[in-house]
Every structure is written in C-alpha cells, then in structure tokens.
C-alpha cells in the first residue's frame, strides 16, 4: 500500500463522514458553474436587461465563492477535529508531521477534485434546463447549449485553487502536541461555564433596542436606522449566542423544580454544551440566514411591486403632447397603425387639458371634458356619468385621495375665463396613472369646457390615452418613438422634445424580468446557504458522534425507551436547527417592518404576502432538512461501535 493509496482509502472508506461535506461542495461548484455558463454564453451581449442579468450573476458568483471559502474552512476544521484520535494513532505509530500534512493535503485534493468533477458534470447536465428557465424569465432568444472552455476553466480554476489553499492551511488546525491528548480525542476537556453576565445582558439589550427601533421607525429616521440597525443587531446576535443564552439557561438551571423534570435535565444540559461549542457557528448561520431571507424577501417584494403595477398604470399606452409638438399627428397615427398590425384591440381617447387659476385655492387647476372621460371610462367597463352646466367633479390624482376629495364641496371661479363652477365630489374610477393629469384636476361639463377652450384657444397639453386590454403585449409598440426620446436624452436636447411617451406594458416586462431574474439568482444562493448551514450542524454532530454513542448506550441500559430517546434527541437537535433559524426569522421580520416604511413611502404597496410566502417556504425546507439529518443521526448513533 503506497502512501497515496492509504490517503485514497481513508477517504473512500470514510465516505459516510465525507458525504455531507462532499454534497455541499458539489452543490456550490454546480451553482457556480451554472452561473459561469451564463456569464460566458456567446449569444448574450449588450442590452440593459442583459447587463443587469450578467451583473447579478457575477455578484452571485462572487458571494458564492467567498461563502464557499468560509464554509470549506469551517467544515475542514470540524473534520480534522473529529479525526484527532485517528491522527494521534498515526503520529504514535511514528508518522512524521510532514507526512501527516501530506496525507491531509492528498485527502483534501481528492475530495476537492471529486466535487469539482461531479459539480461541473452535473452543472453541465443541468445547464440546458437552467438556460430554459432563464430564457423564460429574461425573455431572451432561445439559448443554445454550447461548449466552451471558459466556464470550465473559471470553475475548475476557482475551486481547485480554493481546495489547494485550504488543504495547505487546514493542517495548522491540528494540535500535534500532546499525543496522549490526541488519542483520547475530544470530550475530555469540556470547559466549565464560561459566559459573562454583563455581555449576556448587553446582548439582550442590544437586540431589544434594535427590535424596538425597527418597529417604531418612521419616515424621518428610517435612513439613519438602515445604517445603525445592522451592526447593532449583529453585535447583539453575537452576544446572544455566546453569553445571553448560556446566561438564561443558567438561570433556568437554578430552578430545580423546572429543570429536574423528565428530559429537561438531559436535554438542557446537553444543549448548553452544544451551545458553548457552537455559539460562533450559530451566530454565522443566523446572520447568513438573515441575509438570505432579506435578499429573497426584498426581491420578492419587488416582484410584488410588479404585480401591483397594473393598478398604478391602468392605461396601455400614453402619449402626451405639449404645445409645439409637430410630430403629434404622425406619432399617434404610427401608434394606431402598429397596434392594428399587431392585432391588438384598443380604445383611443384624446384629452385636451386646459389650465385655469382657481379662485378658491389660488392654484392652477387642470380641466378635462366629461365626454372624453366618459368615453375612456366606458371602455374600462364603467358607467357614463352626467354633469349639469356649472357642475364639476374632482379627478383624484391617486386612488388613495378619492375618499377625501369625494367629501368636498367647493364653489370656485376659474379666473381667466370667469366661469364659475361648483365642484361636488370626486370621480370614482381610476383611469390614469398617478398624477397624470395634474395633482389638482377637475372634470367639467362639455359646454363649460368648450366655453373655456374658446377662451384659451389651445390646450396646455393633450393627453392621448390608449386603453389596451392585452396591455402586456405592447412591448414592441412605439419603439421608434422611444428611440428618438432616448436619443434626445443622450444628446441632452430634452427641452426640444415636445412630447412624452410611456409604454407601461414594456416597462412592466423589463421590471418584472429583472426582478424575477434577481429573485432566481437569490433563491439559488439561498439554496446554497441553506445546504451549508445544515451541513455545519451535521458536521458538528459527527464530531461528537463517538461520545454521543457511548451516552446512548448508558441511557439504554438505564432503561430509556426508544420513544424517550427520540424525544431527547429531538430536544437536542431542534434548538440547533431552529434557534438560529428562529432568530434569523425574527431579525428579518423586524427588518421588513423597517423596509415596509420605505415601501409605503415609495409605492403604497404591502410586502406582507410575499414575505409570509418566502419565509414559510424556507421554514418548510428547513423542517425537511431537519428530519433528514435527524434520520441520519439516529441511524448512526444506534449502530453502536
């Protein structure tokens, strides 16, 4: 048996231990490879949307890489710790330290090469599927499967260098002094209670403060809080795991009537030990999960913004023409022509908008004609309204202002033309995007309107509204108009532009695809995080498997039934899985409370539904993962020896 064969057999025969580590590595490599396949895709080039997609993928790659580095380091350390006894024996038998390091190096490279190989292979297998998903989301032309050296080189290069560095650095973690200690392995040197009461209380205070601030936040201070809260909560979380929890558990242990009940004695004392060993890991898992929740939640809330887009933009196309717009007729005809050619039904209404000074408010008021409003309103399926001469209705700028305006009854004189009207109530339907006609707008009876029109000669602007039932299909309509607008923006000649054109359908498809793409990227990343967090716990369990087994044997002899044993294991595992999870959930819920304030100010939308969806999705995944790992753990611990 050569030295290399020995290393190889070590890995292959220890595959149970290596399985979780290997799986998580493979998954990281695979996701990394998928992103790179897209990054280097030959048929992707140019375009704002593609830029966003590529940037998203690039950032995701970077995050993934950094995270994988941490993950590998951490798991490697846990591994080597679990094998201290084995190393002790090897050293005892006369293996040199140098050889031991080489052994670890070869082993790590073996696993690394294996996971890179399997990861890229799986990645390549899944890339067609991945492209199809991306294609559907990004609405790119079909992406053919391609073969090029670049994604392979990037993935293999990135991960191979990572594994090499780790395998060179990892042996440093093994304490090669004190042979007998190595052979005895873990478990003999349990430190006694080591927490600071002050830091424990400080942790609780910090968390309490962060939560209070987050829930009490208002528009004025929210920006400051965004910078203040994360470090506050992070520090609080750290102390919470290292000191507050041990402190609280210690308080609990003092109350024997509560502590000496059934399995609590076993479960809690075991929990304290686990907590002490893993406090830092719990902290990392909590922060990572919080970030994952937050990013997915934010992205999901952006998607929610997209779905509420229609309510905010009820019209299919909008063309606004200001005085001096020589292109008006040509552009409108072109739009109608393009709609017809695309087979899209539409209702076209032209709104001349007049402006007058209102004697009541001393402000300018925009005026539209009742018959045009009715024309559009009927197209929306509403009933036509009637107004007598001298009567008017408010036209609410947003749906939320309707209630307030509807209760108003105002007499005013439109000063330039001298027409006096009574404005009683508001127009009940939302036909325009917010503030389209002006913040202060009224609807007049046709006769009154004509009287003012003849006085002011030409309208302030003409609002051309297209109501298109199939509004999402308009993304290729009016491209020439948009291009010439974009051109004048680039040339800085917007002041010469006497019109504006808005295509909500097109905007919607851009916003929606961007957000879904980011969401997709975020979900993949969160998937990696999730897997890694679970693997951390699994490794930890594995490191203590020997002593756990022994304990199980003692308990079995003492007469613990199978069900009781399961209960004890549950009580030990559940906190490890769900306390970091729960804290992360709590963190992100409060963070979203803060974000909701921003959203409210921005777009009047609620992100609650999306969040509940995202968070419960993650929780379900975590529960499944818990059962999976518990099943493995129980199986390991019952096979004695």
């Amino acid at each position: 048996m050569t030295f290399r064969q020995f290393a190889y057999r070590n890995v292959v025969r220890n595959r149970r231990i290596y399985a979780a580590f290997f799986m998580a590595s493979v998954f990281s490599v695979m996701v990394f490879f998928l992103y790179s396949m897209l990054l280097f895709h030959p048929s992707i080039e140019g375009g704002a949307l593609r830029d966003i997609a590529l940037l998203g993928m690039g950032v995701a790659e970077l995050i993934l890489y950094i995270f994988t580095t941490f993950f590998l380091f951490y798991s490697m350390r846990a591994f080597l710790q679990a094998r201290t006894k084995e190393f002790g024996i090897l050293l005892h038998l006369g293996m040199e330290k140098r050889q031991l390091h080489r052994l670890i190096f070869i082993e790590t490279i073996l696993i690394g090469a294996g996971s890179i190989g399997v990861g890229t292979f799986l990645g390549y297998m899944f890339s067609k599927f991945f492209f199809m998903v991306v294609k559907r989301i990004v609405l790119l032309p079909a992406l053919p499967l391609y073969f090029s050296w670049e994604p392979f080189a990037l993935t293999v290069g990135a991960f191979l260098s990572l594994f090499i560095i780790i395998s060179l650095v990892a042996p440093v973690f093994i304490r090669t002094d004190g042979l007998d200690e190595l052979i005895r392995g873990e478990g003999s040197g349990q430190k006694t209670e080591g927490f600071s009461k002050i830091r424990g209380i400080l942790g609780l205070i910090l968390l309490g403060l962060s939560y209070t601030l987050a829930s009490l936040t208002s528009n004025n201070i929210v920006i400051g809080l965004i910078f203040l809260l994360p470090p506050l909560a992070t520090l609080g979380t750290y102390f919470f795991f290292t000191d507050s929890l041990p402190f609280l558990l210690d308080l609990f242990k003092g109350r024997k009537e509560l502590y000496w009940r059934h399995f609590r004695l076993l479960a809690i004392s075991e929990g304290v030990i686990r907590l002490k060993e893993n406090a830092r890991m719990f902290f990392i898992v909590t922060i990572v999960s919080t970030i994952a929740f937050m990013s997915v939640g934010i992205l999901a809330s952006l998607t929610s913004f997209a779905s509420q887009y229609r309510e905010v933009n009820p019209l299919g196309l909008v063309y606004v023409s200001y005085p001096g717009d020589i292109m008006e007729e040509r552009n409108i005809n072109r739009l109608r022509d393009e709609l017809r050619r695309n087979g899209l039904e539409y209702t076209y209404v032209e709104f001349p908008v007049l402006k007058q000074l209102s004697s009541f408010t001393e402000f300018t008021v925009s005026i539209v004609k009742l018959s045009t409003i009715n024309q559009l309103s009927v197209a929306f399926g509403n009933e036509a309204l009637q107004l007598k001469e001298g009567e008017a209705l408010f036209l609410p700028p947003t749906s939320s202002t309707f209630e307030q305006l509807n209760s108003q009854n105002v007499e005013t004189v439109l000063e330039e033309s001298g027409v006096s009207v009574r404005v009683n109530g508001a127009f009940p339907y939302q036909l325009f995007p917010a503030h389209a006609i002006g913040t202060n707008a009224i609807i007049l009876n046709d006769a009154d309107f004509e009287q003012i029109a003849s006085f002011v000669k030409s309208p302030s602007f003409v609002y051309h509204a297209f109501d298109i039932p199939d509004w999402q299909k308009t993304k290729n309509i009016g491209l020439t108009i948009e291009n010439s607008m974009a051109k004048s923006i680039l040339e800085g000649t917007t002041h010469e532009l006497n019109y504006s054109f808005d295509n909500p359908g097109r905007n919607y498809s851009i916003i929606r695809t961007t957000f879904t793409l980011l969401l997709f990227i975020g979900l993949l990343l969160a998937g990696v995080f999730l897997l890694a967090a679970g693997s951390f716990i699994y490794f930890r369990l594995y490191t203590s498997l020997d002593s756990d087994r022994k304990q199980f044997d003692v308990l079995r002899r003492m007469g613990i039934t199978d069900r009781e044993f399961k209960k004890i294991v549950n009580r030990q595992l559940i906190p490890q899985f769900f306390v970091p999870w729960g804290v992360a959930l709590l963190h992100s819920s409060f963070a979203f409370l803060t974000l909701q304030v921003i959203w409210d100010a921005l777009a009047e939308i609620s992100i609650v539904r999306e969040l509940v969806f995202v968070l419960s999705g993650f929780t379900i995944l975590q529960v499944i993962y818990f059962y999976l790992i518990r099943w493995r753990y129980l199986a390991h611990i019952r096979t004695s020896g």
Partner: protein
Amino acid sequence: MPKNTIKNTILELKQVTKIYEGKVIHRALNRLDFEAEEGEFIAIMGPSGSGKTTFLNIISTIDMPTYGQVVIDGIEPESLNGNELALFRRRNFGFVFQDINLLHMLTVEENIVLPLTLDGLPVSEMKRRVARLSDQLTLNEILNRRPDELSGGQAQRTAVGRALIHKPKLILADEPTGNLDSKSAKEVLELLGHINQTERATIIMVTHDPIAASYCDRVLFIKDGEFFNEIYKDERRQTFFQRILNVLSLLGGNVNDLRTM
C-alpha cells in the same frame, strides 16, 4: 450459605443458553443455572471470553437468551415488549460500569438524580434522597462538580449513587473497580459492601479481580459459558481470597489474566 434463612429468590436463571449467530456460530452461555437471593452480594468470575458479559447482559435484559428461562422478581423479561422492558430496567436495576460513564455535561448531583427525573418524581423527594445518599457516599463536598473534576474514586462513588437513588431491586456492576487505583477500588468495594449490609441491596458484580470478589458473599465461576464452581465466603476475607485464587488457578492458569477487554 445464604445469610437470610427465609429464602426470597429475586433472580433465577434456568438452563440459559446464548448462541450468537454470525459468520462463526458462538455459544456464549451453555445451560447455565443461577439463583440469587434478596440481599446477596455475588461476584461472577471467569477468564476472558467465559461469557461473563453475556451473562450480565442477559440479567440486565439488554440481551435475551436463545434458550432457557430468566425470572427477575417474578417477572419474565421475555414477555415484555421493548417499551415495557426499558421501564422495567429503569425501575428495577441500578448499573455501575467499568468506565463509569457519568454524563459529562451534568454535575455530580444531577448525574445522581437522573434516573428519578426520568420518572418525574417531585423535586423535593429527589433532594431528600440525594441528601441522604450523599452522606452515605461522602459526596457532600463535591455535589456541584462536573465529572471531569473528579478523581476516579469520586466518579465511581457518584455512579454508585446514580445506581442506588431509585432504590432498585438489583444492582448490576460490571468491573466497577477495573479502572480504579487500589485505594479507590477499596473505597468503592467497601461502599458496596456497606450498602449491601445497610440497605439489604442485592448486588451482582462481574469482576476479574480476586480482591474485589473477596468482598462478596458468594463467587460464581464460569468457564466457556458453563458453570464451573461456586464458593461461599467464610469468617476471614484473607482465607476467602486464598480460596478464590485456588479456584482461579484451576480455571486454567488465568490468574494473572486481569485484562479487562
């Protein structure tokens, strides 16, 4: 001769045979008969591989005999299902192990009350019992220490406390002095003897050590899974010890076989 004239059998093994099926069929116990009276302190001796551990495992209902009958306090463990069996063990047995096996995350006091917490006794009762036992076991000073802060003797005394706290019918000790120095071993053996006297506790102890065996009322020798000999104690421990050595030498020159595995 049993000390109490009124016979009260607590444990009875009839023609117990245990065969391990595997690649090699191994007959660990062969038609072994054994009885223990209430309040007896019995040592089981035999060379390595003689079936001592199997014997103890069968008594402690961890293992079931292939043939034969086991009756413990009038109950046949074979008639119980897994759950009932666990509860049966919990209520009737106290265990003392060679490698002590205290739970490292519990204090001495908590280790001792562990069996009681599983049965949900009132805390006041637990405290009362711990107080009484810790006097007897001289553990008062160290009740709040962790197992890794104890000497071997202290740790094993704690384990004895854990085995006694729920007042079991039978205490099963597997090489309780195997990992102790001679002074601690003496301490623990005297303690077991004392408990046997004062509490009338029945103790069955598997051991390699003739000195340990000489503290008992009776020594059962087994060899290759079969009954080999049985001797009762006499007036002086020294002569009893000598007689044990004699039997051991008959057993096949394994007197010096003090290995534990």
